[in-house]
């Protein structure tokens, strides 16, 4: 199952709707990273509202993806972590999301916008050539 990556200007939006197989997860990761580099994204929102269960592998994939995206110079937020998911992740003792989390996508995008506005490359948009 391929996860669509939506683009809103220079913000990318991915919503994980169902449990991913290991292969799908890897594919998702490399797709997203490639896309971030392609559009020189400034921010990425990963929505996991629809996930009721996040196992340690999936948590790691999300975490790694966030690190990669940050290395490529984009801000990351993770949206809609369910209470039960949060609980299991804490119990697993994993520092799941090194990235910041928000209740829902709307707040996630607001946070991204706020972060992006603070950045140097956006403050100098007068001479944007992209």
């Amino acid at each position: 199952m391929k996860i669509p990556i939506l683009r809103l200007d220079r913000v990318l939006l991915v919503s994980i709707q169902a449990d991913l197989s290991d292969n799908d997860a890897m594919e998702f990761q490399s797709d997203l990273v490639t896309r971030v580099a392609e559009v020189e994204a400034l921010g990425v929102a990963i929505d996991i509202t629809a996930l009721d269960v996040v196992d340690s592998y999936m948590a790691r994939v999300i975490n790694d993806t966030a690190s990669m995206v940050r290395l490529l110079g984009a801000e990351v937020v993770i949206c809609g972590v369910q209470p039960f998911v949060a609980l299991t992740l804490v119990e697993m003792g994993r520092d799941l999301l090194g990235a910041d989390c928000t209740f829902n996508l709307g707040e996630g995008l607001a946070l991204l916008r706020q972060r992006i506005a603070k950045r140097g490359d956006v403050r100098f948009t007068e001479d944007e050539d992209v």
Partner: protein
Amino acid sequence: MTSLFDQLQDTALLDEWRQGLPATTRSTGLDTRELLAPLYLAIMKELKDHEPPFALAEAPAALTEALRAWVAAPARTGGSPTEPIVALLGLKQLLLREIGARAPAELSTALARFERVFDALTLLTFETFAAVRERLINAQSASLMELSTPVLRLWHQVLLLPLIGVVDTQRASQITESLLEAIVQYEARVTILDLSGVPVLDTSVAQHLMKTIDAARLLGTRIVMTGISPEGAQTLTKLGIRFNDVISRATLRAGIAEALLMVGRRIAPLSGAGTTAVPMGPPVLPTTLPPAMPPRGGQAS
């Protein structure tokens, strides 16, 4: 003469040549019999058959092949280029002795002396030339090393270190050293580390980078990394390498913007005119001043 060289075609001379090689040539494998024998035979054949003058370009394939195989060994192991020449001249002396034995005494002593002087001159010329050339190469490679890691002063208190090519241990320590010196010299508050030119990001490169970054931070500068490729980002993360609190930007351009922001500067168009129009008149002073920024600590990391 042909008949004389016919008499010399025996392998006793080869053995004598081989025994008489100087000790230094022996260590580099020049005395290997399997290499010497074909060379000896080719030289003898050449002496017997070839009409003078002897031109380098028309040397028969058998001779050049044998010579190449013989010379390759010391060339690879780092021996001096004079060694095979000394060995060859040894053979020449041997042959000269044999020829001399068959010629009038007066002629042979004169010939021997003449040969010795010119052999010595040849060697000396060669050695001097090689020494000068080597010194030149050393100087060039040293300056190449310096050239390959320039620390550029991008703006007041902003440094740019564009990394190009493979980062190995030796280069890494040199990079770190020159970067730290520059940071102190210019009191840089921000340093941009551009990795666009680094072909492969692996564990060792990442570790070197980490050390450089940590050392730079200790001096009180902030680091902005730029130009990491998607593959590079994936590799680094999968290797479990985290550059915590290092700001990373996709392009050098974004990195420069970020760095300027940190020192309270900005790039703005001249006057309020359209961005594409180039002012044709006298230079217009910028009306938009840099935003007033509270001075940053600089030490914050």
